[in-house]
């Protein structure tokens, strides 16, 4: 039984169909990659799952119950947390305050413990906006972990990180799954990272799902290669 099942999901913006009849699933304890070229609809899928957008059609089931009747502020109580592509933090709040606010509606482990886990203990009282981009991404991650989620949605966690940091991130994602008993869905452009950590991968292109499978299967899929490299005319 999948922990998260997206069924025939559609979302339009004016004349553009950002997400077009997409179905995909994420099993309990899996790390699943959601990939695709720019504008494929990956972040829109995240925004639909977290109820920031309302779908035009389709169903999202989490833990055997529909998510569509849960308002955005109820998502965290159901056990879903996320990070954002462009890092959404609370300006002048301290690192510790970010983690405390993460525990507002649902509590995971102690704030100090989580800060130690992501390597931010020494920066607890610094204001988040003073930190480097890499550290800010870890603040966002710590805030998401603070609610003790079952499903963690990571939107381009490797974006803006250097080569070494990406390597550390891959190891961290695998460790987090173990240590926090997480299921992880990640949107990512860094192929090496996705192929290294994901158990399975779903591929979107122009709002449609064009392939699903293990990283090995997907890399050799004709439709995927075409989407990334373009058609041979």
């Amino acid at each position, binding site marked *: 039984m999948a922990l998260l099942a997206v069924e025939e999901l559609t979302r339009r913006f004016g004349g553009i169909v950002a997400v077009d009849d997409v179905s995909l699933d994420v099993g309990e304890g899996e790390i699943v990659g959601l990939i695709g070229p720019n504008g494929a609809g990956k972040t829109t899928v995240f925004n639909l799952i977290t109820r920031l957008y309302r779908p035009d059609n389709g169903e999202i089931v989490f833990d055997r119950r529909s998510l569509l009747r849960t308002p955005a502020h109820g998502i965290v109580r159901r056990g879903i947390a996320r990070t954002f592509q462009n890092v959404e933090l609370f300006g002048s709040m301290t690192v510790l*305050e970010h983690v405390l606010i993460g525990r507002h509606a649902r509590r995971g482990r102690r704030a100090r413990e989580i800060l130690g886990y992501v390597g931010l203990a020494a920066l607890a009282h610094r204001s988040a906006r003073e930190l480097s981009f890499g550290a800010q991404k870890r603040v966002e991650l710590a805030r998401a972990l603070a609610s003790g989620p079952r499903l963690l949605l990571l939107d381009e966690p490797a974006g803006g990180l250097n080569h070494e940091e990406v390597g550390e991130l891959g190891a961290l994602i695998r460790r987090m799954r173990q240590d926090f008993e997480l299921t992880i869905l990640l949107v990512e452009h860094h192929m090496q990272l996705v192929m290294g950590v994901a158990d399975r991968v779903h591929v979107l292109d122009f709002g449609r799902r064009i392939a699903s499978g293990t990283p090995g299967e997907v890399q050799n899929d004709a439709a995927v290669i075409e989407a990334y490299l373009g058609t041979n005319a």
Partner: protein
Amino acid sequence: MLFAFDWTQLAQQTVIGLSSGGTWALLALAIVLIYRSTGVINFAQGEMAMFSVFIAWSLVHHGLTYWAAFFLTIAISIAGAIAVERVVIRPVEQAPVLTVVIVTLGLLFVVDGAARWFWSPETRTLPNAFSTSPITIAGVAFSWQDLGNIAVSLGLVVLLWGLFRFTKLGLALRAAAVNPDESRLLGIRVSWMLALGWGLAAGLGAVSGMLTAPALASFDQNLMQPVLLYAFAGAVLGGIESPLGAVAGSLLLGVFVNLVGTYVGWIGTDLRLPVALAVILGVLLVRPAGLFGKVSARRV
């Protein structure tokens, strides 16, 4: 001595300035509170405070002591403002800032009209909150009322700071103001936080009004109009986005206006309001972000 300066008078006038500045600071804080969470100036803030003063007057009139009426009025004002926010502001929550500003202007007239309808247009008085006898400190006589006003204003500022800094609710209020979408995903009911912000602002306004009224020989429905102007000036001086700035700006303005009125003969008491307006104009021309505000660049 060639020139004898009256230090006693300077000290007295400074304290009087801090006293009125303190009451302006509370209303300024109310304005900043709502501005920070929604980007809207609530033009009705002064009239809502006036309404609170009239509620307090009615309670005192029905036999309550000043302080009993004081705390009961704060509670009623908070609850009332939350109700007003739910009914009047919530429907335009997603609307452009200008729409909401116009709604608050409408609210100004509705509240003002309601107060004139409920309470006849005669002049009234509120009993003094503090002893009217003077107290002598280091040979200078001050009024208990002024010292009391300063103490209540600053005490309330500290209380509010503690709420925002150290409580779970305060953290949620701040988060909702800074990043509503993200706050929602953390389980914060952003819309209710905005309503609560209105409640807190109205509580501050109520205290501002209830400290202002007893200092006047008598008051009517117009009593908070100058206070709102001074509060605007104080908030602009300190930086409209900065709570600390609003408090410091109002206190500074209180002292400045009072000293100018005392020492510059032709300004006296009549021209104090224009002085405050001149401060608004000067600050906006020279340093638009105010003393404590940060200059922010917006991506368009």
